[in-house]
């Protein structure tokens, strides 16, 4: 049915070897930036000026809403959505290959008034997992771009 191991077939090339990364609020506390750098490295992409493409990462925005009934405290389910705007530029002429797209990942956790200590820890862990998902989606996007001819122009 046409499936081949990714990277071994002829048409899906490997992800680009080099990439430039520019992050809006690049503080050590930025989970998404940390997660993205870790996954890029483990996918074999090095971040250095010899790159042909630059990934600009906007400010990550976590929004939370209630799934089901907020009520006054029983165990509720809350949904956390991470939304990150990004754009990709060609380094040598600054042209935008991708402009103002965004990546979204969502997850839910259940909490109740009797578990306030766990609620904060669960939210922190969920934020980390969502940052990982978003980073993985960004890598997928960069993989698609690295194969596109536009990135080749010199």
């Amino acid at each position: 049915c046409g499936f081949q191991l990714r990277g071994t077939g002829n048409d899906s090339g490997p992800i680009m070897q080099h990439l430039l990364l520019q992050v809006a609020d690049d503080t050590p506390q930025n989970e998404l930036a940390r997660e993205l750098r870790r996954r890029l490295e483990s996918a074999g992409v090095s971040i250095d000026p010899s790159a042909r493409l630059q990934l600009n990462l906007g400010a990550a925005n976590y929004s939370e809403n209630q799934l089901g009934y907020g009520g006054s405290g029983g165990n509720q389910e809350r949904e956390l959505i991470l939304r990150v705007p990004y754009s990709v530029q060609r380094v040598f002429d600054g042209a935008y290959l991708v402009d103002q797209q965004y990546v979204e990942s969502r997850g839910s956790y259940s909490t109740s008034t009797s578990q306030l200590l766990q609620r904060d820890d669960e939210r922190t862990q969920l934020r980390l997992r969502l940052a990982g998902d978003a980073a993985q989606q960004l890598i997928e996007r960069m993989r698609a771009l690295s194969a596109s001819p536009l990135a080749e122009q010199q």
Partner: protein
Amino acid sequence: APPLPSLPADQLDWHAWGDDRPSNELCSGYYLMPDYELEAASDPAQVRGQSDDAGYGQGGITTLTGNVVLRQQDQQLQARQATLNEARDRVALEGPITYRQPNVLVRGEQGSVSLNSDAAEIEGAHYVFHSSHARGDASRVERLADGRYRMRNATFTTCDPQSSLWKLQGNEIVINREEGYGTASGTRLRLYDVPVFYWPWLRFPIDDRRLSGLLYPTVGFNSDNGFDYAQPIYLNLAPNYDATIVPRYMSDRGVMLGGQFRYLFGTDRGQVEGNYLPSDEGGSDGRNDDFYDEDRWFFNYMHDGRFSDRLTYSLRYGAASDGDYFDDFGANFDEQNRDNLERLANLDYRGDVWHLQARARGYQVMDYPVSPNDKPFYELPSLSADARWTQSSGTYQEWNSSATYFYRDIDESRLNNPTETATGARLNIAPAIGFRRDPSWGFFEPRAQLFLTQYDLSWANLSGNDYVAPGATDDWDESPHRTIPVYSIDSGLIFERRTSLFGSRWRQTLEPRLYYAYVPYRDQSQLPQFDTALQAPSYAQLWSPFRFNGIDRIGDVNKISYGVSSRFLDDATGHQRFTASVGQSRFFDDRRVTDDDPTKYDEYQNVNSRYGYDLVRDYSPAIGQLEWQINDRWSTRYALFYDTENGATERNETYVSYRHPSGSLLNLGYRWQREGFDPSGDEEDRLGYNRNEYDVSFAWRMNASMSLVGRYLYDQTNSRSLETLAGVQFNDCCYGIEIAWREYVDDDDTLNTIRDDETKRGLFLRFIFKGLGGVGQNPDTYFEQAVPGYQRARF
């Protein structure tokens, strides 16, 4: 003195929109400054003039008569007659005069202007501030040397010239265009010329740059407080700190005074807020209200700061007079829903490898009465150190460690779970080693982690407790320790192919995944439970060795999980359009570690077999998930948890959402979940019936001025509506009205029974005088929480 009549629109630089009116424009026209009549002289000190006649007479007086025009830099004067003194630093103007500065127009009867400073006075004046879309009349307008405008017996409004919907009328109004706000003394608010409200002193913004000024009054009617009127007044004290004072009158409660003080220094910012109501009149229950005649108060301090890029700290301290405070006095639906007040002192160092944290944390639970097992432990303090080293070969090591002292003072005699009756210290060290490679065709990650945990406890004596056998914990170890290894292997392959479907080209992936986890059984039934909770089944849990979160319980497990997911990625952008995944776990042994909650596991063979079944079932529920971004407006999500052994659905949820660029949106949701599916929480926190809910929410921006928001949540099992929410936002050129109505079921924290549920209603009304109220008031984020995707329109 009654305010002067306003000038007709055409004398106020007013241009009505024709068919060139932009779609989101709310006002019927705009103020536009005409060009200057004369060119300014090249030398800024010189005054260029034009008149029918001119004369330079005795004593150096220059007199110009016959529609005189004078221009100096960007200041232009027009009058019937103008007389310049000998020093040429003052010009007196007669007859209908027009004074112009950039974005300022003042027409008056007569006046005088200084030519070497910006000072000017004009009598019988009518003024327009073009950029602020503001106008008014005044018996006298003075432009002061520092650029401010002081007006006597003046009015101020942002309504279009022909509309007299609202105006401020004050003995003296001072407009500071540079800072963007105005102050007024002895001010009356007139609606259609009827005085409605009076302020002795008032500050209001004239552009949306600053969060300052009179904030929107909030009027409410609800079953508890009766008529509820809050009038926040904003004090813009300095560029980096400001305050809000909120007097609030409630017909059934009395007068409450609130305040908020915000500050911002460099990278540090913080806020102190508090409310105080002396001797509560009891609300709708009157005398037999729980807090009749008691003082009700609330206090909250927040501060976030940064010592360096890597070292940040935050402080929180919240307290309230009682647990019902927010239910009774929540200023908006969001506050009414607040279930805790956090107390925290946290120092956080984020290195490249090490993440160190020292904190003291606790909560006041906002429930009344608070059942003891709802009271969380205080962490006094909690120190943690985590690190991760990775090598290019793919191997990695982790160091996780934390030392915490848990304390709470409650009446242990009313606890039903003996493992929650201890206070004391816990030291936990959990090093881990592993290997992870992510070539493009898959990943492989073996991992091993060792949990070394040591407690130093003091068990409460349970003599007076009638739930637990007396002396149950007498012989429990005061310093138990526990050592548990956690082994897991995660592996996956990624197959890919190019297909074309629905007329566009996709890259489709097929990602099989295999996961094995083994955690040996260790008896933990005599270990305390400080911050641990049993997790509900989820797709993420399939690929995780842990059945609990927190450290006090490391659940034994011996399972293999298998699953496959497929993604459709847009060939050009890599944008994920469709993803579906299926997974399940096969348990090789029964699970024995529980959270020892007697209401769940009392000799699980017979009581509440639901939770007992979860321990012995051979297969986890088969979990299927699907997310499909149909086009840039429609998207849908679906999840199913299916018990393959008994052939029963345990949970399914379906969401369809529509997003329109204008901001209108629709969410349709259906949730079904078997009773007991989510084991977390105490008995009264767990749903006592199958959750079977329809959840419809929408936001409709009909046009620039009108938008509706709504939500309807229906509980099919008990055939009752859990929550009805409706909001209308009417937005016009110079005012706005926001009406929010909420009817909801208050379950009084007992989810396991609906006998004690009561329906509560609340209505909020908010008037927004555009240009008067800053955006400073905390907008009611409840709508944004209850209606996913909704962004409250900014006035």
